[in-house]
């Protein structure tokens, strides 16, 4: 059986966080010049850049959809992003994650408005510390908005996990490697609709339900940060605040 490494001491996690605390999040909108939309995001020690190209002509032609845009999502880890160098190029894990991330956005992107085109989302992990796909989804939401892609909602994402028998929010790498379960989700905050869900490890049904609630609550917090970053990006250049108050 696995040795239990002590990840919780005196009711706190090794990095000082409580069970329901997120790591610090930093968001910058529109960081790349060539991409149509982009976002740089940090979630704890995760550093991720998301870029969106499109809608643009879709190649190859035979892969076009006459009725709507085709969305491609590529999640990729830079070779220097992990302790052990990761060989460049897609591996099975990245391919699965790319699929899960793409599907997380399917319910919100209004693809019918751009038939026959392609919308490409690229997420590059520059530095990883567990929860990379959740950081990627959060950044991609903002990059899609920044690119002017019409969407019904933003998508927010976070993971919960089980460490030393407790369900906790937003595992870091040490917790993920030594924990008993990891459950990333993606959600539309406005409607509490879940668009991605995976669970890896072993938990009881009750732990699952508790963990899901914890994660959904955190997604609301993250949504507020995403929204604020998008709004502040234009607000900070306003010269007269009173004009807004007039409305």
């Amino acid at each position: 059986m696995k040795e239990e490494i002590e990840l919780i001491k005196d009711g706190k996690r090794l990095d000082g966080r409580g069970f329901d605390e997120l790591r610090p999040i930093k968001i910058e909108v529109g960081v790349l010049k060539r991409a149509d939309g982009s976002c740089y995001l940090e979630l704890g020690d995760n550093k991720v850049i998301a870029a969106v190209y499109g809608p643009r002509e879709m190649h190859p032609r035979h892969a076009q959809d006459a009725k709507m845009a085709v969305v491609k999502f590529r999640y990729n880890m830079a070779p220097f992003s992990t302790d052990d160098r990761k060989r460049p190029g897609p591996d099975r894990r990245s391919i699965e994650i790319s699929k899960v991330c793409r599907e997380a956005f399917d319910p919100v992107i209004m693809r019918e408005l751009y038939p026959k085109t392609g919308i490409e989302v690229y997420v590059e992990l520059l530095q990883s510390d567990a929860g990379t796909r959740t950081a990627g989804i959060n950044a991609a939401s903002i990059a899609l908005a920044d690119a002017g892609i019409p969407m019904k909602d933003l998508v927010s994402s976070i993971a919960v996990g089980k460490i030393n028998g407790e369900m906790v929010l937003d595992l870091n790498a040490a917790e993920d490697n030594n924990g008993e379960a990891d459950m990333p989700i993606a959600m539309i905050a406005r409607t509490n609709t879940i668009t991605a869900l995976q669970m890896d490890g072993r938990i009881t049904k009750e732990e699952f339900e508790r963990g899901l609630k914890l994660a959904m609550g955190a997604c609301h917090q993250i949504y507020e940060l995403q929204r604020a970053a998008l709004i502040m990006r234009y607000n900070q250049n306003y010269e007269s605040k009173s004009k807004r108050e007039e409305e």
Partner: protein
Amino acid sequence: MYQVVVPGDFLSEETKRAGEGTYVEEGKVYASQYGIVNVRGEIKVVPLSGKYMPSNGDVVIGRITEISSPFWIVDLASPYEARLHVSALSGIAREQIEFGNMSEYLDVDDLVVVKVMDVNMLMKIELALQEDVELRRGGRLVEIPHTKVPRVIGRSGSMIKMLKEKCNCFIFVAKNGRIWIRGKRDDMALASTVILKIARESHTSGLTDRVAEFLDSFRREKERELRG
């Protein structure tokens, strides 16, 4: 007036007034774009970014990408290609244009001012030549996001009028964000700089005054230099 919204923001319950950049769900109007919401008349969200989507009547600057008899294939800075039929030039051609010599009239990479005549269901876009605007040699093209075009034109054309006067240039602003400038070299450089500045600061207030000040101070600087 300048309220920024993000996709999913609730805008109103008056679903009958829902316009561009919004969607209706269960009796409520929500934003579908990241942009500036406007509730006078229709409830719409003007996007801060996004690709130009051609619509009938738009006058735009296209770039020839391919000659595919009997059409020129034209790039409109849009996700969709457009085509210009060889007969569109019959008014200005000296003789019947043969398929073989289409490139003598419009070659790949040439710029042309066109009008969008039809956008059909399959997103095939038909164009006609806009004859009253000619892109003669010696000009330059500036490209800005099409969403910033209204700002470059200004309310009742106030901004573009000021630019033309103070830069002393011929400036043609097309709906797809492509802008044609013609004038002396230094004047064109000034006009480009100012247009890009307007595009960058398009969402701020007091822009017209700031641009006027920028142009005036530039002039004063130039005059000072000349006087030595």
